[in-house]
């Protein structure tokens, strides 16, 4: 018995790991029934994989049997891998026992499609329902909706899950046709739209009746695969921007394509585009927390994010006329745009300068990192550096330090990176 469940866990964790979303934050489920667990507020990473990703949820597939044949997916029908399926009870037991030992914040359950969409979705919902009703489980539950599942099932899923996701995977209809012929955009966007409507409805009802049932209180998210198809960063970020706006998504996750599949519909790459993925995350961050407009980050003329510098520095170098920023008088919004200054530092600066005019030493003591910022700020009109470098020189100094002899060698290496991405 024991070995069977171990075997299943191996197969179904392996198959689920390429879905990169792992967040367990934003939950609002309190432990009010003296049951098990509490999913209020910030999620916790209970461990980290050797590739440095947060392990917060038990992330598994219910089964890796699938009737579809998406080129980028290990679970695709035509791929020769071992198949397995958990029973509903097995998933419930694993989740509860891991949770009680403080290994996890909850469950992220997804599945290959066996038989048909509703048949599969119904089982996912059953796991969540059992956890909530029989185990009195208040931990985090993230369910992935199966493409093509009925509206009723998605609605029911939202009653038990904290978060629902509909994965778009490919950033354009054309790539979808090529790489996932059984899927299409409208079929993906339909449930996304209906989840959004449900979220709004539940919120309105909540205002009227306190006892109205919650619907996926941590909202919905999606994932885009980067590097399995030809879209550039501009297209990808435009799409995310739209998703945030039109579908009020909580998160868009980006997954650098890991060359797991030898399917001949895919580009031949040897390493996942990790740097590119990272730059896209940084750009996404700028849109969500730093008040940047997507057009400021990439546009038709510059459709690719610079791989050797982060997008905020890139923006600053293209907009030198906005600098230097005087730390003691500039708006919070502008301080936030200084390369190297994050949300925390910006807030600290704005509150500390009410007491006393700040100088560079004050900033240093407050833990503001000046390595980049020093080229873009003044403190009481004093500069730490000549500000008249041209953008190229500035970029070099920031990347390689002030005396940059080795720079040519390193530039070559960065060019190599660029090709990989």
């Amino acid at each position, binding site marked *: 018995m024991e070995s069977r469940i171990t075997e299943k*866990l191996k197969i179904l964790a392996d198959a689920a*790991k390429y879905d990169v979303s792992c967040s367990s934050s934003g939950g609002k489920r309190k432990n009010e029934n003296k049951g*098990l667990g509490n999913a209020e507020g910030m999620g916790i990473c209970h*461990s980290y994989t050797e590739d*440095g990703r947060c392990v917060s949820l038990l992330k598994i597939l219910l089964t890796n049997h699938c009737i579809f044949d998406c080129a980028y997916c290990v679970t695709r029908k035509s791929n020769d891998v071992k198949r397995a399926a958990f029973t509903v009870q097995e998933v419930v037991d694993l989740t509860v026992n891991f949770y009680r030992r403080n290994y996890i914040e909850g469950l992220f359950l997804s599945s290959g499609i066996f038989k048909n969409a509703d048949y599969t979705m119904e089982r996912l919902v059953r796991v969540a329902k059992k956890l909530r009703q029989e185990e009195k489980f208040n931990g985090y539950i993230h369910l992935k909706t199966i493409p093509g599942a009925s509206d009723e099932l998605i609605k029911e899923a939202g009653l038990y899950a904290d978060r629902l996701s509909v994965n778009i995977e490919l950033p354009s209809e054309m790539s979808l046709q090529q790489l996932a012929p059984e899927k299409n955009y409208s079929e993906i966007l339909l449930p996304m739209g209906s989840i959004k409507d449900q979220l709004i409805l539940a919120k309105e009802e909540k205002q009227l009746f306190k006892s109205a049932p919650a619907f996926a209180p941590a909202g919905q998210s999606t994932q885009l695969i980067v590097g399995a198809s030809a879209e550039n960063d501009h297209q990808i970020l435009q799409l995310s921007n739209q998703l945030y706006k039109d579908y009020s998504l909580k998160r868009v996750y980006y997954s650098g394509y890991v060359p797991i599949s030898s399917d001949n519909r895919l580009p031949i790459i040897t390493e996942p585009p990790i740097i590119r993925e990272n730059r896209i995350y940084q750009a996404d961050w700028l849109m969500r927390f730093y008040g940047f407009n997507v057009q400021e980050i990439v546009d038709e003329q510059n459709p690719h994010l610079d791989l050797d510098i982060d997008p905020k520095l890139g923006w600053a170098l293209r907009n030198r006329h906005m600098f230097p920023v005087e730390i003691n008088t500039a708006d919070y919004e502008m301080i936030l745009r200084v390369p190297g200054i994050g949300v925390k530092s910006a807030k600290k600066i704005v*509150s500390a300068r009410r007491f*006393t005019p700040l100088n560079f030493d004050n900033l240093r003591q407050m833990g503001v990192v000046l390595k980049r910022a020093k080229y873009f700020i003044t403190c009481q009109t004093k500069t730490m550096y000549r500000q008249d470098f041209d953008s190229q020189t500035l970029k070099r100094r920031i990347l390689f330090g002030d005396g940059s002899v080795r720079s040519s060698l390193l530039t070559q290496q960065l060019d190599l990176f660029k090709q990989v991405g």
Partner: protein
Amino acid sequence: MGLYTYDGTFEGLLTVVFEAYERKTWPHTIEQEHLAQPSMFGQNIAVTTDEEKVSRVWKGLQKKLSVGALKALYHTYLWEQPGFEMLLFDYMKLAIDSKECIEDNYAASCVLRVQQAAKQMFREKHRMEAFVRFQKTADDLYYATISPDFNVLPLIIQHFEKRYADQRWVIYDTQRKYGAFYDLNAVTLVNLESQPDKRTSSAANNIFSEEEDKYKQLWQVYFDHVNIPERKNPKLHLRHIPKRYWKYLSEKQPRLQLETK
């Protein structure tokens, strides 16, 4: 200037503040009674904790500081790093003497240092909440040991009380030799009679439930299979889980081999 000694409690420290103002004698050092060496210079003043004085100082601080800042003071006390008493004293004196609220004045070194201490405490608290691993004993008690860098046990109790309302659990600080025990109703602080680390040694392995090894092993299996080797990044991995925390983590222990039947 004087050397103040107190009983090691947070209340004791607040009493020191009261006495210092009363006598207009500012401390150059504050030490716990049982650690203090009498000083040859200045006065030696032994302070006895006094509820009335504690409450007057605390009320005064409440008028000057937000709840967040008051918490930061308590956390700095639990931080227990050398010099924390004088740091707290300087902070409280600055707060009491200033007309304006000083808690965001990071240009003042005591404000900055209290904030840094509070940040270290927050980090350690967060790590303990993440890395505590319970093992289930044969009598259905979930048992975990910790030895944190700072005294964060009092700060993590609430988190676990909310989370595990329906199971009995113990978290024991092996370094400071006390623990928190939840009995399905409330949490009490306990000193265990027998050494807990002996209880977990292999000789006493039978105190853990039969399932325990099974789930420990399943967790190790999960950890190994959620990893994507193509993305390996040991530096990032270590930044997230510094080696000194590995001792807590079953996934970082040698792999268990269960007999398969």
